[in-house]
């Protein structure tokens, strides 16, 4: 249950960040509806943001592991 809450919090934070960053990039002038061009931009932006999250996560975890190894030597 703790694990579930953690995953939820993580997904929620990811959604909030994507919302903030991609709304800024893809909907510069909000109109009467979400245009199809804006929706395509949001889809792409969302995919890129999740890729970026993965790259950052990988780099960060690698770094932590390198540091903890070098401390043990």
């Amino acid at each position, binding site marked *: 249950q703790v694990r579930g809450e953690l995953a939820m919090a993580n*997904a929620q934070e990811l*959604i909030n960040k*994507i*919302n*903030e960053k*991609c*709304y800024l990039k*893809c*909907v*510069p*002038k*909000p*109109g*009467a*509806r*979400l245009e199809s061009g*804006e*929706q395509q931009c*949001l*889809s792409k932006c*969302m995919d890129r943001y999740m890729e970026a999250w993965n790259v950052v996560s990988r780099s960060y975890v690698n770094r932590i592991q390198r540091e903890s190894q070098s401390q043990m030597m």
Partner: protein
Amino acid sequence: MSQPQFSENDQRELAQFLEAENAKARIQQTVHSLTDTCWDKCIAKVNNKLDRSEEACLSNCVERFLDTSLFIVKRLEDLRSTGM
């Protein structure tokens, strides 16, 4: 010190009241955050009155932001269900 005694009925009403106040606080917090975002998007300079286009921009900004939020959640679910 003794605890005050509440009937079950009192307790239920208190819980409902607190829940309603909590909901109100969450709504106000969202309004603050949306006003922050949409102020930056819609208000370039400060005039003597909000003009029609600024007001329309603010209201569209709220609606489209919430659309974006739904769009993202729905797409995440689609991606998950197609097993990506």
